[in-house]
């Protein structure tokens, strides 16, 4: 079955973001791959060929581009594809132990899917969550951050029950409502940008006001 056959609007929307030229068509390759992967969990050869036709290129090129990036999969993943950051900042926060714990608790090796079809795991590189390490990303969705051992166990239990919690996406808030930052000792220091009125409009040319 043709995946995009009944999704003309979606396809048109993706193409509309890029120039109306052969090169512009080609730009749709990554968004189209993402669509398929989000829907099916992986990109099969048939889908590669379908995307190739849409982008005006060959299956060889699609596979070449796809295999370059680490988040596209050619093999099916579990319902929960757990991506564990293993780069230094997470590693300093214990992500190696977190990984070992996941692999043994879920009884699944990278590249495989657990027997119940629920879990697959992948080590990934720095997810940009160094301040809230360690981090696990589930599927093409949000992050679970500051994952301690007990949080990890809660997460596993919730996924086993198929009621995964919403991703956290915690924000390290450093500026208070009044627009000032607070030092480690709790002291509010500096000024607030809110107190600074905007500049008057300049007159052309130059910007002198």
């Amino acid at each position, binding site marked *: 079955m043709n995946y995009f056959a009944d999704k003309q609007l979606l396809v048109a929307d993706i193409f509309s973001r890029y120039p109306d030229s052969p090169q512009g068509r080609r730009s749709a390759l990554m968004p189209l791959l993402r669509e398929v992967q989000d829907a099916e969990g992986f990109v099969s050869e048939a889908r590669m060929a379908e995307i190739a036709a849409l982008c005006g290129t060959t299956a060889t090129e699609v596979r070449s581009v796809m295999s370059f990036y680490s*988040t596209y999969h050619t093999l099916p993943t579990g319902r929960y594809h757990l991506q564990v950051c293993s780069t230094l900042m997470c590693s300093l926060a214990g992500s190696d132990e977190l990984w070992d714990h996941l692999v043994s608790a879920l009884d699944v090796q990278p590249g495989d899917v657990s027997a119940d079809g629920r879990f697959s795991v992948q080590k990934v590189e720095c997810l940009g969550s160094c301040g809230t390490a360690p981090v696990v990303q589930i599927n093409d969705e949000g992050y679970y951050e500051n994952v301690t051992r007990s949080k990890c166990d809660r997460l596993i239990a919730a996924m086993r029950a198929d009621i995964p919690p919403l991703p956290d996406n915690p924000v390290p808030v450093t500026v208070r409502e009044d627009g000032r930052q607070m030092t480690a000792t709790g002291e509010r220091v500096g000024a607030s940008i809110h107190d600074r009125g905007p500049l008057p409009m300049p007159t052309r040319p130059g910007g002198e006001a």
Partner: protein
Amino acid sequence: MTVADPAPLAITSGKDPRFAPSLYAHVGQDRSWTLDYFRGHGGYQGLRRAFAMGPDAVIDEVKKSGLRGRGGAGFPTGLKWSFMPLNDGKPHFIICNADESEPGSFKDRYLLSEDPHQLIEGMLIGGYAMRASVGYVYIRGEYVHAAERMWAAIEEARAAGLLGQNILGSGFDFQLYVHRGAGAYICGEETALMNSLEGLRANPRLKPPFPAAAGLYGLPTTINNVETFCAATQILKYGADWHAGMGTEKSKGMKLFQISGPVARPGVYELPLGTTFRELIYDWAGGPLEPIKAIIPGGSSCPMLRWDEATLDTPMDYEAIAAAGSMLGTGGVTLVPQADCIVDVTWNLVRFYAHESCGKCTPCREGISGWMVNMYAKLVRGRGVPGDVELILDMSENIGGRSFCALADACLGPVLSSIKLFREEYDVLAQTGQPMHPPRRRWKEA
């Protein structure tokens, strides 16, 4: 207060009573990502000023502000913008580099998800100044939440007439789209990013031609970091002089510093350039939680600095850190604990670069992705032999400055600096097979 107000003394401390955070002023506030909130806090005023000035004056304003690229290389932004050809009759593109993948960097992520309109405004200003008609925000694939917020903000802006035709009656037309990456650090390199956007393998391209002459789709293109565009928003809103009043002689303005590793309050702090490491680590981040031996000053590719008084007193600006033997990079500061084996720590980073090598050129593909990572694995597994460290140094000489792009050199940052600073740890490991600092538990229970 007017633009002409002279800044009597440069502001180089976040605690300076005159310093007010601006880039990060709204991050974390309720519904800060909505257009309503943004407008309620002076949003799109910088853009209005830009329209009133005219495009050339905008570039001059950015030049005058002293803003330098926040993506790592620190190239003067106004100058970069002025490289775009004028009246060449071709469509121009601007791209926001939101591929933030350098380990230790996590500032752009929150700007994207919490204050997307600040970026849209910055890109509108840049697009207007550089006569671009289309912009792309290239967001790394893993930042799903950020990409969703960004899309939503773009929709809002479009509905409000802030994107599209004849924006705010200025006659300026501009479209903005999000393009998501899919897990490849090299996409942060600007020419690789353009290849990725064109649906190709993200190998870096030959320069020249430079992007301003032939970039995306072979057309004039300028790429800037998220923080750079956001800073442009603030500069247009509060003036070049305000911006130039912060920081040091050559490193002007404010910067988002990120701190990670064993500290009390890891996170993102907006501080003027020239703030010392000491102030960031102790006054803002609450100090280290355990003894530290090295600081990675600006993302993992920046050479490590020894943890000592001199380093702590080093101002965090482009020149001072360079003088200390490293780079400001993205401003992502990581503390390396005393109790961890430096070879193991460096191995982790070498593995990262080995995994992220695009494979185009020989020294990086074979030297880093093939050999270097094996050397480290061998050392860490206790199978090293005397001479291995010399071999790593000699290999590094054959890799450094020989590769196609800067990724291979980036890997040598931690390699060479860790050997220089902690040679003893390497030698002991190579000779005895035993690390001076054995592996330990790091994972928190709760």
